[in-house]
């Protein structure tokens, strides 16, 4: 029998209260392999009976070195890594990276590509919120909703697949436009989804909104104030549920969001239920945006005509010497970006997603940094869970909507 070495409480004394050292409270290691830590989050809980005295989140179990890896790839190759960050928001990650590169190169994006970007970004938001509503309901023991949400998510993934050939790792939005135009079936598929989804959202709300058991589990649990959100730089639905109407689609519009008509849902309670209500309302707003996008979808190119940075269409290569040279140069050594640094942001389903690009003038980025929403949002975990029960910790993790790939880059 091999000897098992336990970490002594003394080694953790800077993290836990003195009562844990005397054995008065219990230290419970929740995760990284635990059914409801949404991936590989580890929480060290100090418990007094079932009440949480302190909660210490521990991240890094999904660290993939994405940021460092991107430094050794040229700008086109590096984009592939962005899908792997927040795997529930692939189009959004592609979009924010493309926005940064476009800012660096001063690239134009055709109107059709802008509209498709918005439609897909909003579909991604619904996709992410569907996974969230399913898993957080599952955490509370309502297992059927998870499968209903997955059923609807499947429709969105089908749309991604017909556009990008991939269900999750899309790499569809490229600097200067899109990889290719959407197929002809795209419009019908999105319109079907728009027709179906409101009724399905009503169904979810019928299951949860006034369910006394659900109310009991979510109201007055994990409350955070607007000020605390700002102190911890928590953004997205967490901040909006605390009463601040801060949404980058309105505050710093990109891809033409300023021309769409939509509201920012807010709540004031700041508890788990408020975050639930905000996200449900956001899905309806996203449907509104997609509807407007579909109605205005113009015809035209989906890629910039700037051949120095954007590859020419395949059909030109056979007839144009210039096109062949550009194609060859772009796919062998890539393009060199001008020296400088840029920062671009979007509103991801989880909050402010920013990317900082530093270019030294070569074909590879000198430094890439992602300001991902999960990382600061996760910081509020100790604040939210103090004084609640173990069962509430699960509800609170769910309500922050963490994606560990997003926290550990």
């Amino acid at each position, binding site marked *: 029998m091999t000897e098992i070495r336990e970490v002594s409480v003394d080694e953790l004394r800077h993290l836990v209260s003195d009562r844990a050292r005397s054995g008065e409270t219990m230290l419970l290691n929740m995760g990284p392999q635990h059914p*409801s830590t949404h991936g590989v989050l580890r929480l060290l809980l100090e418990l007094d009976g079932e009440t949480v005295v302190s909660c210490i989140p521990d991240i890094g179990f999904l660290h993939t070195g994405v940021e460092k890896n991107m430094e050794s790839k040229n700008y086109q190759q590096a984009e592939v890594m962005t899908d792997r960050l927040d795997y529930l928001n692939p189009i959004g990650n592609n979009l924010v990276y493309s926005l940064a590169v476009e800012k660096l190169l001063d690239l134009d994006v055709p109107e059709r590509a802008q509209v498709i970007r918005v439609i897909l970004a909003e579909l991604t938001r619904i996709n992410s919120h569907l996974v969230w509503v399913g898993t957080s309901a599952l955490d509370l023991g*309502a297992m059927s909703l998870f499968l209903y949400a997955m059923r609807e998510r499947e429709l969105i993934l089908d749309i991604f697949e017909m556009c990008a050939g991939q269900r999750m790792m899309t790499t569809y939005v490229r600097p200067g436009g899109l990889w290719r135009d959407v197929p002809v079936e795209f419009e019908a598929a999105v319109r079907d989804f728009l027709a179906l989804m409101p009724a399905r959202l009503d169904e979810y709300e019928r299951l949860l909104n006034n369910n006394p058991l659900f109310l009991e589990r979510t109201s007055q649990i994990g409350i955070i104030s607007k000020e605390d959100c700002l102190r911890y730089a928590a953004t997205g639905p967490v901040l909006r549920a605390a009463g601040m109407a801060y949404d980058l689609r309105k505050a710093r519009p990109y891809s033409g969001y300023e021309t769409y008509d939509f509201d920012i849902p807010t709540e004031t309670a700041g508890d788990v239920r408020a975050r639930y209500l905000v996200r449900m309302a956001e899905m309806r707003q996203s449907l509104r945006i997609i509807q407007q996008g579909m109605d205005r979808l113009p015809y035209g190119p989906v890629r910039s005509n700037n051949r120095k940075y954007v590859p020419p269409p395949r059909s030109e290569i056979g007839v144009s010497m210039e096109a062949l040279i550009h194609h060859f140069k772009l796919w062998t050594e890539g393009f060199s970006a001008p020296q400088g640094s840029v920062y671009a942001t979007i509103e991801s389903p989880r909050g402010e997603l920013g990317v900082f690009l530093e270019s030294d003038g070569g074909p590879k980025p000198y430094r890439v940094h992602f300001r991902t929403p999960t990382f600061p949002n996760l910081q509020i975990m100790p604040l939210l869970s103090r004084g609640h029960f173990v069962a509430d910790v699960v509800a609170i993790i769910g309500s922050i909507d963490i994606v560990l790939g997003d926290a550990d880059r």
Partner: protein
Amino acid sequence: MDAALIWEWVIKSLFIILFMTAGFAYVTLLERRVLARMQVRIGPNRAGPFGLLQPVADGVKLIFKEELIPAYADKFVFVLAPVLTVIPALIITAVVPWGPQVMLFGRPVPLYLVDLNIGVLYIVAVTSISVYGIALAGWSSNNKYATMGGLRATAQMISYELALGLAMLAPVMMAGSMSMVDVVESQRTLPFIVLQPVAFLIYFMSSLAEINRAPFDMPEAEQELTAGYHTEYSGMKFALFFMAEYIKMIAVAMIGSTLFLGGYAWPLPPEWLGGFAGPINLLAKVLVWLFVIIWLRATLPRIRYDRLMFYGWKVLFPVALVNIVITAVVIVLVGG
């Protein structure tokens, strides 16, 4: 006492144990299929027609699995706990009558193992034993999740047993006897659910808590406590806990049908089909009951532990007491 009578008892006991074990296997299948239907899935349908051999496949898998005993576990108690849990579940239905007398092989055979004059008391007593199994399982695993699960289970089962016992008293008072056969026989015309709807509801809710089913499945709250008291169990030892849970599902359905829904005596006259209408009456009700339990699991979120204790002590228990008092007063006034 002739030898044939002893044989009759042995055969009946064997039948009950086999029935409960096979029932367990097929209740798991029923649950998986029904849940799947409610969740727009298909469910297991590969092994045999309609997946009917799935329980066999599961059983074979569990038997051949490695049985781990954690290094720091209390080995004797760790092995004893699943046994302590499953035995009460197996013997609890001994007093539930399946039907009146039938003629089998030329001799009159009553369709129950034993007609105890304290049948209801026997049930309450036996259910209490299984708490030990769960508490010991949680304790002996030497795992914090298991310990918490075991403690929760103990507290929950003890609290709800009170309400459960009081709810079971109502039909006993109506029938004027603690024997299950007498209780059934006094429901020939009218099942007690009509006269005792409150007691029935209390019985239903506290029985869910007693057998740790959703929405009261706190001890094994997967999302909080991984698997609760049986976190460290694997192979057949895990299967025994699983078995106890599902057999208890069948048992509370049988007992509840007997006490409140007329058992074997209603709605078909039990003498039909040479006395075999009795089991049909009973099993049909058990099936519906099981379906409702599964349906609840598919629909409801889990209730939080402190709320559960609140309901048990401050809602169900007083209501059950008041119900008993009112029943007693009415019985005295009407004259029984």
